[in-house]
């Protein structure tokens, strides 16, 4: 039953690792701007369309 020491140790260490990850995320400024990334992630496509097919798609969209 002394396996519980290992289990406890592992669970606490995992928990602390996640906690450290959270602290680093806050520190790096990830939570400072919660809006722009949500818009930014939708952009990639426009750029590719632009490069490959240029104007045909633009007129379709309008």
């Amino acid at each position, binding site marked *: *039953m002394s396996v*519980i*020491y290992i289990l*406890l140790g592992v669970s*606490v260490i995992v*928990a602390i690792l996640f*906690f450290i990850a*959270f*602290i680093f995320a*806050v*520190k790096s*400024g990830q*939570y*400072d*701007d*919660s*809006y*722009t990334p949500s*818009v*930014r992630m*939708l*952009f990639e496509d*426009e*750029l590719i*369309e*632009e*490069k490959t097919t*240029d104007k045909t798609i*633009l007129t379709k*969209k*309008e």
Partner: protein
Amino acid sequence: MSKISENKICYHCGNSCDDTEIIFDEKSFCCNGCKTVYEIFSESNLTAYYDLQKSPGAIPKINEGKFNFLKDTQILEKLLEFNDESIQIATLYIPHIHCSSCIWILENLHKLNSEITSSQVNFNKKTVRITYEHKNTSLKDVVILLSTIGYEPYISLDDYSDGKKHINRSMIYKLGIAGFAFGNVMFLSFPEYFEVNEFWLDQYKPVFRWLMFAFSLPVVLYAAQDYFISAFKGLRAKILNIDVPITIGILVLFIRSTIEITLDMGQGFFDSLTGLIFFLLLGKFFQQKTYSFLSFERDYKSYFPIAVTKIVSETEEIPIQIYDIKKGDRLLIRNEELIPVDGILINGHASIDYSFVTGESEAIEKKSGDKLFAGGKQTSGSIEMEALKEVKQSYLTQLWSHDIFNKNKEEAFVNLTNTISKRFTVAILSIAVLSTTFWLFYDASKAMNVFTAVLIIACPCALALAAPFTFGNMLRIFGKHKLYLKNASVIEQMAAINTIIFDKTGTITSNKKSTATYDGVPLTDSEERLLKNTLRGSNHPLSRTLYDILKANDIVTLDSFEEHIGQGVQASLNKDDIKVGSANFVGKKELVKSLQTSVHISSNNNYKGKFTFYNSYRTGLSKLFNELKQHYDLAILSGDNEGELNNLRKILPTKTKLLFNQKPKDKLEYIKYHQTEGAKVLMLGDGLNDSGALAQSEVGIALSENINIFSPACDGIMDASVFHKLEQFLIASKRAIKIVKWSFLLSLLYNLIGLYFAITGQLAPVIAAILMPLSSISIVVFTTIASNWAGRKLV
């Protein structure tokens, strides 16, 4: 062509292009500027800019020389975030950022200038952080690039302040730690609640208990430290604020639990302790609603430029930092630049827009030799002026040396929670002492247990949560209705208001519309047509206003058109001649200097009459005042002359006090005087000249037609479109106070139940662990539902 395109709007900026449509690439543009931006984008394959959002752009304002100061290394050093041999990083504030197209184009800047390595937009703050290699480009080039595509950055004196702004994230850290510990402690304490004398459980009890102790250490030592500090400060100032009983609760919980586990008496209250602190911090976090796109702390520094151009000699002009301007310096103020110091106009045609200062949007004409005041914006061409004072001694900026700007309104205000907490703390301490004395005689072994139990269970968690959640939620509801408050305590202050003071220009009058009446000889149809067409050519603000008021007429080409700057315009068509402008210009001797703004007209040298302009008041003004007069004292403080006195008398309730010719400092003193007589003042203003009054009043609200442009330091910013709802906001804040009072009652009920267990000496950890979160959560639910209900009445 002009007939077909009447409803056409510019492909780039969305303005109508009735008069001057430019067709390019099958798209219509309102001006060459917009067309140029489109050309730049299409050359670099960036036209997706127009797909994300329709007409997202702004007309570019290219102003050669405006950013010359960016060459100055000393100024540059202050603006740059990072600077080494190859790379520079700068964060620029761009007011125009408003849609996804803006984010897209600004993050693709590297396609327009290959030296830019990356650019990142923060939409809420309207900033873009640009990294570039400065060997072949400079900040000036980057800024000019931004200006040419319609995203001119706003660089103000504020950016020149020392030290980078530090972002305080300690609140999130604390909340994270408390939440993390709370979750873990809950799991660890769970097995013991079932109290089964199970062999293995008994075996490992100490491990579980000491682990809980370890988890709660950072919570008590770090996450809860604000409460200790605040309680200590309160005690030193001899105030029993809400943090005093909270601190007692936290300490007693921690110490008693530690003793219990060391002496193997029980499992302690670590779960209640961490849960309590977590909930309290959650309340604080919820209350901290911030509008990152607004600033409530602005003073003149946010309006003033970093540098202006100093004329050293006939041939030499250098950029000079504003603080370095000395008396006697000759300055060059370009079109659209701000006058930084009081001075005298030397030459050039000055047309100064003081709307930042007074809220009055109409430009004022000045002749050489006239005095110019700091804060005005030059609107027509370049002028030369001589500084009479230094920046900090100028008429406008002097206002900020008043000590009212160093006071912290929030600290001076005793809020509802702290008023209650005083009695609460005294009551709890006496209950604790009384019950302990009783147990000392009855069963001395339990006395200490009861004493600590009372202090634990009475810890006013729910009480402390009531106000943050109610006001925090109300703050969000107000925000949805376009009244943006600086913090939650403003709502409490709003509920206590008994006097409301309004500024006139720009506050109760609207900037956009103006009305005019004509008196004199009626104009014939042909004269009216000539007048309309004459005004069409003039760019003077009064001409533009009058042009908009007059009914539509055919567009005809005039035979001659001449604008006499500062006087008026003259035009002729088919031998008919018209003069529009000042009384002197049209040849009429004005016997009495009129206080009102008017435009005189003469046709073929015969005086016809004049258009007199009136301020147009915001819709619903009269109704609002009539509603407000039943509960509040009303007054209007105006910096203007008495020209509007009679007009205002007509539409406002008779009791309203009207004061004219008030200087910024007079407004402040007026409010101060009334406060000594017990008035709780809400001031509604809009210009920098109201800053003193806004700071002095209990609640200072800045009214703004466009919340994204600048408004002076205040407690709240109100969108002009909800001006007529002022009374509803005041009623809603009163309801919020009522909700808080009801939830105080509710939390006292929980405390009474808890006290029963505590006094009778049967407070087990499991009861505390159920009762404390239950009371907190039910308070949160109650206040949220109730404040949403109260907010619903804000139609």
